[in-house]
């Protein structure tokens, strides 16, 4: 395939192939990490944004984008790492949330419902991804990666990750 025949929309489809190395069920499009694509002849500019500043996956993701797009014949690929506006879980696609739940990770609640600054605030009502019960409790505000918290279901007893609202 020649790079000149590809339009912007198709490029997003190609980038769907690139998964988050920490949550391999989500593509970088689902996560809302890809902010913009600019296409000028053979030159391509992709703007990405990190979920958290310390996210160790960003270098891998940038490399994967480069590989994926160079196989399409693009010679000049410029990847811009932009941090403003700051990433928020509200940018995660509905499709992404569905995939997360299927994978066993509770998807983030909408931001306006959560993200409270209040001390000792009651736990967010997080739905168990396995049995759909809302009788769950937070085990820890921090989990296996920066973007997750640990929860447990009080009904089916399953411990699970919650992709916390950010």
């Amino acid at each position, binding site marked *: 395939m020649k790079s000149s025949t590809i339009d912007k929309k198709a490029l997003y489809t190609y980038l769907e192939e690139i998964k988050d190395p920490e949550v391999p069920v989500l593509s970088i499009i689902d996560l809302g990490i890809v902010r913009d694509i600019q296409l000028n002849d053979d030159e391509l500019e992709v703007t990405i944004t990190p979920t958290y*500043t*310390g996210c160790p996956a960003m270098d891998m993701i940038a490399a994967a984008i480069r590989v994926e797009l160079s196989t399409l014949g693009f010679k000049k690929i410029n990847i811009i790492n932009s*941090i403003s506006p*700051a990433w928020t879980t509200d940018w995660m696609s509905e499709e992404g949330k569905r995939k997360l739940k299927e994978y066993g990770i509770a998807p983030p609640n909408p931001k306006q419902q959560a993200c409270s600054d209040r*001390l*000792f605030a009651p736990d967010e009502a997080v739905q168990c991804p396995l049995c759909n019960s809302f009788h769950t409790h937070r085990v820890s505000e921090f*989990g*296996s990666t920066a973007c997750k918290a640990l929860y447990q279901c009080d009904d089916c007893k399953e411990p699970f990750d919650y992709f916390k609202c950010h």
Partner: protein
Amino acid sequence: MSALIDYTLHLADNTLILGQRNAEWCGHGPVLEQDIAITNISLDLIGQARSFYQYAAELKADGSTEDSLAYLRTERDFKNCLLVEQPNGDWAQTMLRQFLFSCYQFFLYQQLQHHTDTRVAAIAEKSLKEVRYHLRWSSEWVIRLGDGTEESHNRMLKAIDELWRYTGELFIPVAYETETGIKFTSLKEAGLNNIRIVFNEATLPVPENVYMQTGGKTGVHTEHLGFILTELQYVQRAYPGSEW
């Protein structure tokens, strides 16, 4: 320009050194969940440090990189405040250090996100979301321990006695901070006000008339920083240019 470079390095050094200190807890936390929490915070702080070092390296434009700035400078070049280099001590001391620093960062970054330098503003805006989380978590720990048992209360008192003397320097601008546009008076007011609310809830006294140590921001450190850098920089010093 040189003031902006120094200020950016100061912001980077603050977060790198506290990130390194918190990382010392890895595998040693009181329970697994809190071990994970403190190292998560460490990762956030090191991520913020990277953003600031990358910018400082671009501004310097002398071949510096984020790595050379972190791994190849000596104590006198480091501009972090004294608070972040203090030893972990017990969990109470680590929690108090995190709370005092997060509280300072929270109000500082609120100002910095409107900074005239758009890059500094963007890093502050991004980091603020993480700092908000750190502040809430560490505030709860200060309250839990201060208003906990006699033992935990006494440990918090000891931690305050140990760390309070390093809080003064945060609000006294040094030369490279004078042009930043930061309103130090309102920063101090907001910070102290928040500390008062949390300490009050924690049944802990806010110290008064304490002699304040200064010097970190201009490279005059306590003896602890040398030991931190020895560990942090060992691999690059022993095997120059080595990569993962």
